[in-house]
């Protein structure tokens, strides 16, 4: 699956997008796998309440099942307008 990062999440992790092979069942499981990898992921995901997630380009939540999702994106609360 493609995992995308935006704004300061992108900056902390150091890349905008990566391909991740995972069998995580939920977004939260995927986060746990990423955090276990390297410190920069731990830093980015330290406070999930400060993050938002989109699954296949729809806003979702951390307990959502990943199912056949092809794209998961992590970012801070949006500041459009």
């Amino acid at each position, binding site marked *: 699956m493609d995992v*995308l990062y*935006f*704004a*300061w999440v992108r900056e902390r992790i150091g890349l905008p997008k990566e391909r991740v092979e995972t069998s995580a069942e939920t977004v939260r499981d995927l986060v746990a796998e990423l955090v276990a990898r390297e410190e920069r992921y731990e830093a980015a995901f330290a406070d999930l309440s400060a993050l938002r997630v*989109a699954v296949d*380009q*729809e*806003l979702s939540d951390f307990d959502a099942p990943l199912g056949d999702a092809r*794209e998961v*994106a992590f*970012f*801070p*609360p*949006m*500041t*459009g*307008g």
Partner: protein
Amino acid sequence: MVQVQEAAFDLGAELDSFGTGLADMGAIVSFTGVVRDVDGGLEAMEIEHYPGMTAKALEAIAADAMGRWSLGGVKIIHRFGRLVPGDQIMMVATAARHRKDAFEAAEFLMDYLKSRAPFWKKEHLKDGAQWVAARGEDEDALRRW
């Protein structure tokens, strides 16, 4: 109905073309957001977005407004990239028979754009850069609807 673009837009021309063909709509409301330099140190405002999701998210917000109010039309333009103080960031316009519908729908669009459309702002100040934090009151504003 929705445009996501790096280029500047011409508010007047956009409103003129929006109003054309809506002659049975008596009320047109527009909102324009402008980059402001509150403390005098802002050199640029960088707007990042999520290209795959942005247009879809804006279209969903526009469709939601069309379903909630009696509207003749809705227009949303949002820019991304590097802007400077005084630049127009975005606009929404609504057309309705009655002014109440046009006003409420425009406020609804703005409230949802602020917190539910995938844009992030980074301020480039004279002494560094920082991401703009979401404001609790913007999240609260959604509860009205």
